[in-house]
């Protein structure tokens, strides 16, 4: 039985950086301990050392005061430590039970064969015990993201985890699913499990954690601090090490004439209505936010408005000009696009920062001449952006995959902003980035607004939409039924509309 785990004076050195610098960290059974820090502060690295995925150069780990060696995840699991990674490690075509028992299969007496009946019973018992509300026989591919995460947690518990590490568990969840996850975490805590939650969402930390620890640049800044006298602002400053403006608000004045018009946008797929009769206009210097739970047609709408997908019917006007064609036509018409998933559509992870910085704009005369790339210009502009955006990298030839999420997102934002677009389609601009980068990106978006750009902001983060937008459209089931002035609504009302509620007036 684990009562405490202590990590003492841990050092982890990578070729260029000291990721974890003489850090001590303690977890107790039956507590929820939030490990905070910016991207690249060393949170995940420290936990990977505890889970045996990385080996530290120096330092000891003690369980209940006794020194233990954890050289690989197998040893960690045997000691009762479980970890749920940001990216799930499940086999979609197998059932929940099969995924959970893997490598721990209950066998028939002395036999070679897996006792599936017993396995299913064991798994279902665990599911019922913690009210996980899933079916042991369901296939993983049919589960929602939140349910898949529960399977991962279950897998760790099935293997006997008494200390559970959750690496940014809420990054992929809808607000409802976050609530369900927290219920499960509280139940596990009641049952005596110690939980470490890695996150940079401060609100969630304040809601769920018993105590917090803060890492900054590989050093432990605060350790096991209780939540009394803490608020989001103080936490953010601990993480970043300077004053941070959290809820940056839009300035509503200074808007021009309507400039970007979307009329009669419909999309049918296999006879199903994905988007139904969407109409809106955005003025110069205005930010129109689209709030909604993911999967209500936002992705399709973004793809249509950036030329990546053909709508069944639509008319897009930018000023007096109609916009149609492929993504290259939209880019040429100065409609900038910050895609919702930077590693899917935004960046080419294996290519360098410089190569990514010209992506999509490599046809412009500043970057190409007679078919040859102008490498002098691309290098110069990339270096300028690296300085202006404080992108943490040794040089412009670094591959993008080696950057942290926040720095990757800065590359995307810097690329689009540097091309001075007239209209900007911004999707999930701060997903998975830390407070420092978030503050910076929000300021950039507001700066563009001040420069009279027309901005459409789509985000699953209601707070972000609410803070930045002048007007907010709520999308539900492929329809926009309400477009509200920010001043005449509040987050509670928007949350209600996002889940299909109506306004009775």
């Amino acid at each position: 039985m684990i009562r405490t785990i202590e990590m003492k004076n841990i050092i982890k050195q990578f070729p260029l950086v000291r990721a974890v610098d003489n850090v001590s960290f303690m977890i107790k059974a039956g507590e929820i301990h939030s490990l905070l820090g910016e991207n690249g502060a060393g949170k995940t690295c420290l936990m990977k050392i505890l889970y045996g995925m990385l080996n530290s150069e120096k330092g000891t780990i003690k369980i209940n005061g006794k020194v233990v060696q954890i050289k690989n995840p197998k040893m960690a699991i045997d000691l009762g430590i479980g970890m749920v990674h940001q990216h799930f490690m499940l086999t979609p075509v197998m059932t929940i039970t099969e995924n959970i028992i893997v490598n721990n299969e209950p066998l028939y007496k002395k036999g070679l064969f897996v006792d599936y009946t017993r396995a299913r019973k064991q798994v279902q018992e665990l599911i019922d015990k913690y009210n996980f509300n899933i079916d042991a026989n369901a296939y993983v591919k049919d589960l929602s993201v939140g349910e898949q995460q529960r399977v991962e947690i279950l897998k760790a518990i099935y293997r006997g985890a008494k200390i559970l590490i959750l690496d940014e568990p809420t990054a992929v969840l809808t607000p409802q699913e976050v609530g369900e996850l927290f219920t499960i975490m509280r139940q596990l805590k009641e049952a005596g499990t110690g939980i470490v939650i890695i996150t940079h969402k401060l609100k969630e930390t304040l809601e769920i954690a018993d105590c917090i620890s803060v890492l900054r640049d590989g050093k432990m800044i605060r350790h096991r601090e209780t939540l009394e006298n803490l608020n989001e602002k103080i936490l953010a400053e601990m993480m970043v090490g300077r004053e941070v403006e959290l809820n940056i608000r839009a300035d509503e004045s200074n808007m021009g004439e309507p400039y970007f018009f979307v009329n009669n946008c419909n999309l049918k797929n296999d006879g199903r209505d994905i988007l139904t009769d969407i109409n809106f206009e955005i003025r110069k210097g205005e930010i129109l936010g689209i709030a909604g739970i993911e999967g209500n047609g936002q992705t399709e709408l973004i793809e249509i408005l950036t030329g990546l997908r053909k709508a069944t019917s639509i008319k897009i006007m930018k000023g007096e000009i109609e916009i149609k064609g492929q993504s290259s036509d939209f880019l040429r018409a100065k409609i900038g696009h910050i895609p919702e998933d930077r590693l899917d559509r935004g960046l080419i992870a294996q290519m360098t920062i410089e190569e990514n910085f010209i992506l999509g704009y490599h046809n412009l005369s500043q970057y190409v001449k007679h078919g040859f790339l102008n490498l002098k210009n691309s290098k110069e502009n990339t270096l300028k952006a690296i300085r202006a955006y404080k992108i943490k990298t040794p040089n412009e030839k670094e591959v993008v995959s080696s950057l942290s999420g926040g720095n990757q997102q800065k590359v995307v934002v810097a690329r689009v902003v540097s091309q001075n677009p007239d209209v900007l389609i911004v999707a999930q601009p701060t997903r998975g980035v830390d407070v420092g980068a978030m503050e910076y990106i929000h300021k950039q978006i507001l700066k563009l607004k001040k420069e009279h750009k027309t901005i459409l902001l789509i985000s699953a983060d209601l707070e972000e939409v609410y803070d930045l937008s002048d007007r907010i459209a709520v999308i539900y089931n492929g329809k926009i039924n309400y477009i509200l002035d920010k001043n005449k609504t509040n987050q509670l009302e928007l949350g209600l509309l996002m889940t299909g509620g109506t306004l009775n007036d």
Partner: protein
Amino acid sequence: MIKKNNLKNLIVPIFALFLALLVSALIMLLSGYNPITAYAVIFKGALGSKTGICNSLVQATPLIFTGLAFMVAKKATLINLGVEGQLYVGALVGALVGTVDFHVPFIIHILLVMISGMIAGGLAGLFIGWLKVRFGSNEVITTMMTNFIIINFTSYLVTYPLKAEGPTAQSERMLPTALLPKLFAKTQLTWGIIIVVVIAILIKIFIDKTKMGYEIKAVGHNKRAAQTAGIKVGHVILFSMFLSGAIAGLGGAVQVMSVNRRFIAGFSADYGFGGISVAALANDSALGIIISGFIFGLLRNGAKYLNMTSRIPTEFVSVVQALVVLFVAAPLMIEKILNIFKKKKEIK
């Protein structure tokens, strides 16, 4: 950081090569042959004399062409196993153009043969690209199948309608104006080796410096990001398959202009597939392919001497080649082995 990576890119293939030679030596030893004799014969034969070196370069020329062809397609993540077939198409069309007297200076005639071989091979590659873009067919399967069709169809052509007088299935002899001049008398080494080196340099410039090369890399690494960036993914696939086929076709044309002087049925000694090994050993670097092509050419050439002077079967050269590819394809294993050496040093 960058320099370190370059070094690593060099160490892995060199180590793989040595490991392959070592394991092959063990196999020879177990089969009752003396590996030292074998390697001595191979290297002395292939490098020990001017003729030997020239013949190694002759063997290397088509391998460098096919290596480049394979690599260009792979930059766009296309596995062009049709290099062999495209080589045949280029060789046949080149050989036929070489038999026609256009009454032009020999330089022009040579260029005509080369360009026609390129276009023919390029079209063969383009067809595969079109099948992929239009119907979504997997290029691995379509290239394998079209290889059979092309190789057998060209054999048919030189067995019946285009057959020259004589017992073998081959086309008419090319005109002297259509042949590449020799670099040294009494060898088969021609301008071909210079042409292929120039092509390799041009391809390096193309991939590193041009917009099209950039788009090919972008499509190769992430099609969705490329599409979002306004790159027409279908066009890029078509173009890179055309380019890949064109390089293979040029390789075929240069081969008939240098060595065969006509199209002979089934003339290719697996140059197409050899090219895959060449590209693999070079880690898909254009200039590296020149060197790895020479290494494979050397082994192939050396194998001939093995046959002449000892009882050791020439197949051992194929064993070496296969092992090289195996070890190169497992870079992690090589790194692990190298790490063991490193750790031992640290302990000392």
